């Protein structure tokens, strides 16, 4: 049945999460007829159940979250590599990946991107492949062969016509790129490029070959490989290596659905909120892949403490734990002596509000039942 506006407004005004409001609306719409009285009963029960489900104040949610993520860690595999989804690309998974996320590493051990394309590119294999070739870093080895001529003391590059056509690059462009990158004279003649080192020495010559091999002629630096895979009815690109900022600008790439597993990069390009979501997604995915159930709320809390002051901070000595207010808590974690010496110099005061500090001085901790400051009145006082 169609819901009256008054009811919709009533539902909107309730103090409920969006998911429950939507469920209420859809559930009632499916029903054939609902009386005013029934409606109120439903609302009352839903709100009551929600209130029952709410966390209690003083609940030590932090410890519960930490344990909920740490405990399954013992059951995870150590196998670093796994052929995730795409057989061709290796991704770190399991415990090492979880540690990597929590460590807020600048670069993950296996950076990879999932690039989704705009509709017209996503449906056409050839167009998808063109985007892939445009993104994939092209080095001289992709286009032809490289050899040294010891008699002439120069490097001879033979370019392959077909390979160049496929990757949409001309011999002139290759020569231009090489000139820019090495700063040396480049002699291009048809598909043959000849370069000579500044000094005609054997060592210089071999070094030049290595330098030429490293030059990115086309595509994004750092993206070593791009693999196309059909998912559902669209073609998706998977990459080895990650460079979010540059990839997003490519024609045909759908910037709203393209992601990377490099959290720091997401933070730089899209901001801290995106980084927070990336942490949640990556951690959830890592745990799910191992078949471990962990409530998102726990992972959210970890992501929030890592990002709540605007930077992605590590869980550990160089991040969250190292910036704690309490001297004793820091000293009890790692690098004990330095923390105490520094505290002495600054004249720090420990307010003994956290857990470790109070355990150290032998007082009840200020969490859960220990945080309730009420004192019962004596019976005779109440009577009077």
């Amino acid at each position: 049945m169609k819901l009256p506006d008054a009811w919709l407004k009533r539902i909107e005004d309730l103090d409920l999460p969006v998911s429950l409001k939507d469920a209420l609306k859809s559930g009632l719409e499916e029903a054939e007829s609902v009386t005013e009285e029934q409606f109120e009963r439903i609302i009352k029960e839903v709100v009551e159940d929600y209130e029952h489900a709410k966390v209690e104040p003083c609940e030590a949610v932090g410890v519960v979250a930490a344990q909920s993520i740490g405990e399954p860690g013992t059951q995870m595999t150590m196998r670093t590599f796994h052929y995730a989804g795409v057989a061709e690309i290796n991704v770190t998974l399991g415990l090492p990946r979880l540690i990597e996320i929590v460590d807020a590493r600048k670069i993950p051990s296996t950076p990879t991107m999932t690039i989704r394309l705009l509709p017209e590119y996503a449906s056409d294999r050839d167009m998808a492949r063109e985007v892939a070739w445009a993104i994939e870093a092209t080095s001289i080895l992709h286009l032809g062969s490289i050899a040294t001529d010891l008699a002439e003391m120069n490097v001879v590059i033979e370019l392959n016509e077909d390979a160049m056509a496929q990757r949409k690059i001309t011999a002139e462009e290759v020569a231009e790129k090489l000139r820019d990158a090495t700063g040396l004279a480049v002699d291009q003649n048809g598909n043959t490029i000849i370069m000579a080192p500044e000094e005609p020495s054997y060592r210089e010559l071999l070094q030049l070959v290595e330098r030429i091999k490293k030059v990115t002629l086309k595509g994004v630096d750092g993206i070593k490989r791009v693999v196309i895979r059909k998912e559902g009815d669209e073609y998706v690109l998977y990459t080895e290596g990650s460079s979010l900022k540059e990839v997003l600008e490519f024609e045909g790439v759908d910037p709203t659905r393209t992601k990377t597993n490099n959290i720091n990069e997401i933070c730089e390009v899209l901001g801290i909120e995106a980084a927070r979501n990336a942490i949640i997604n990556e951690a959830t995915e890592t745990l799910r892949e191992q078949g471990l159930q962990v409530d998102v709320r726990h992972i959210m809390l970890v992501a929030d403490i890592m990002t709540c002051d605007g930077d992605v901070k590590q869980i550990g000595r160089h991040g969250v734990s190292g910036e704690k207010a309490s001297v004793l808590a820091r000293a009890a974690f790692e690098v004990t002596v330095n923390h105490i010496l520094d505290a002495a110099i600054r004249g720090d005061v420990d307010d003994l509000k956290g857990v470790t500090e109070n355990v150290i001085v032998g007082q009840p901790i200020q969490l859960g039942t220990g945080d309730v400051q009420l004192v019962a009145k004596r019976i005779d006082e109440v009577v009077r």
Partner: protein
Amino acid sequence: MTVPKRIGKIRFGLISPQEFRKMSVVKVITADTYDDDGFPIEMGLMDPRLGVIDPGLRCRTCGGRPGECPGHFGHIDLVAPVIHVGFAKLIRKILRAICRECSKLMLSEVEKKEFLRQIRTLEDLGQPTEDVVNRVFAEARKHKECPYCGAPQKEIKFERPLSYIEDGHKLTPADIRDRFERISDEDIMVMGMNPETARPEWTILTVLPVPPVTMRPSITLESGQRSEDDLTHKLVDIIRINQRFQENREAGAPQLIIEDLWELLQYHVTTFMDNTVSGVPPARHRSGRPLKTLSQRLKGKEGRFRGSLSGKRVNFSARTVISPDPNLSINEVGVPIEVAKELTVPIMVNPRNIEVVRKYVMRGPDNHPGVNYVTRADGRRVKVTERNCQEVAQQLEVGWKVDRQLADGDIVLFNRQPSLHRMSIMAHRVKVMPYKTFRLNPAVCPPYNADFDGDEMNLHVPQTEEARAEAEILMRVQENILSPRFGGPIIGGIHDYVTGSFLLTHKERRLDKEKLMEVLKKIDIDEIPDPAGYDENGEPYWTGKQIFSLILPKGLNLTFKADFCSNCPVCKGEDCENDAYVVIRNGVLLKGTIDAEAVGAFKGKVIDRIIKEYDPGVASQFLDRMTLLALRGIMLAGFSFGISDEDVPKEAAEQIQDVTRSAKESVQKLIEAYRAGELEPLPGRTLEETLEMRIMQTLGKARDAAGQIAGRYLGLDNSGVVMAVSGARGSMLNLTQMAACVGQQSVRGERIKRGYTDRTLPHFKRGDLGAEAHGFVESSYKKGLSPTEFFFHAIGGREGLVDTAIRTSQSGYLQRRLVNALQDLEVNYDGTVRETRGMIVQFKYGEDGVDPSRRDYASPENVHRIIKKVLAGENA
């Protein structure tokens, strides 16, 4: 009741020499400890004013006995100042930042003001000031001339460990101290220090604190010889050198000798503080063992902070081996009587309980449950013995405290390490039992992650009413059935409980009256349902499903697929021929088999529903009855697994051989194709990688096929299959390996490649790429492995062991870091999550404020259920 004292805050700082002299109880001047009669020498390192450790003596400062007197600091007046190692880097930074003539911080007034403002802001926010302070030092160092007095500055070189060289001249600690003394308070503040608690010159010691004897007790060896603490040894060295230094200086010794002695004094003071400074040879004991000095005492896992302050030792605890007892409730723990006699619960005697307590006291300490000690109103403790118990009982008065032995029904905390989550410590009710192990219901093994292969567990007895109340309300086992990790049950049937439930409820198992009684006799059920039917002799019979329904609460409705559901492409629902579709209506099991999906730990749909629809009490009762019922169920038929269960018929063995042979052949073909260069590489892979992947695939398929052949011949009459299928233990893969084919052994996900040049073992030809040469085990465990297979199996097995060993340490550290980072977070009354400073981490916990263990109440499914319920209720 006296209000306990609370420590509000702790301020850290340096101590000034003046203050320290005032504080000190004795100036230590002699390096000797005890005289020939064994008495401490006055003004020596063991001066009785520093506190007492010898029993029978009293402290000359506070009059306390050993144990009461906390000890008091003394001091040594150093002949010349020395640097405190911990501050070496800070001293260097300050030296470079201040003018060598006027000691002013070399920044303009404007800069100073700005930096100070920034520091103050950060301090108010509770943020670290380190970055700003580092900038202050970096800026000030840039000046080549003092902006105030114009004196040219000289480069100060720092040489490890502790020398500062200015323009080729070594600065003595005395010179440095002179400079530091002239720094103004304002400049000190700009350098991020607090001039009231820490002036820079206090980092250079003129007085050395002598720690009280209580923190460096000497021990008397059996031979009567005294052995001194490492710190005492170090202090002896310091005093000796100090004296020699003074004598030499007074005698007007040459500068060179004075300098040497000064260096030596510096060395001893340095190692007294920290014996692991790089560049300083560690001070050693006569035996060559490095001394454990101050900072070594604090550092590390066994150090003061982590070892003694964060982790404390307790009384009223017990530890012993655990063993199973399915007849106990999940809320109970069996405690050996010897343990029960040792552990006590304090009872305050009041007019209401005095007579009861008196009876306990009269039983004495040997007659459990008796009393071990009584504490009188004046605080005197009396040990109750067999002899004096009657007398003490008669004297008993209101206001006394009686330590009653642990008895049935007392609440205790039970714990197994590693305590990875909060369910690792739960509260149980005591059940005193004979023999020497703690007993627990195997259903509570999953949260503790316990088994009975020799595991030990700890037990703690709460000593106050508050603690007992909290334990009972929050920590009882039944309150922890739901894990906060995923909101599902973590307690449930394991192993035989699952097998038993499966055997009892699978298909239609008939039980005559005698068997019915046998099954139910341990369970508190006194109504028998009507028989399901009558057999050919006219005898009534009941079905296993009927019996299981007896323990389900009334009104329970549930439908789900059992664990052994084979996921047919089209689910026939209630008509499932495997009996894998479970239907429970109004507390009656109509269809389906109860297996791990219904009552197993971590899954347990039935347990989950009961706890959420009823309450933990009902759930724990269900679990207790289920455990009893399942065990009776398994005992009805008997259940065992032996070597003959791994036998497969001859034709199966032949088929398996065919499969493995053809797999090996196709591997050979792949290799030939590779050698001939006919193999198509997979995109993005080299030819070798492609070959390896294809071979792995082929061999993997072969094992699966072999398993399927074996599976066809092993039916539900095989115990192994019953266990695997019901989810009780093991998997079909394990059975496959036992009966059919062990399969490919791998190292790092690849076939085994290491070993000799171009081959894994000398049994094979060089360059052999075949299945057998790289760790394919064709045999089954039952058949036995060939020598090469056995060796490859050991390689694969070793990798697993190493993996486990590494994983435990890595995940342990991850856990420690996570807990440390998050432990102070708490939900406030306004629903926000904040840390100790009040900084908001989340505005609403988990974005919806819902407790993960109760998340089902706030789920869209629940809303739909409510709507259905309300609408159905009205229409009916």
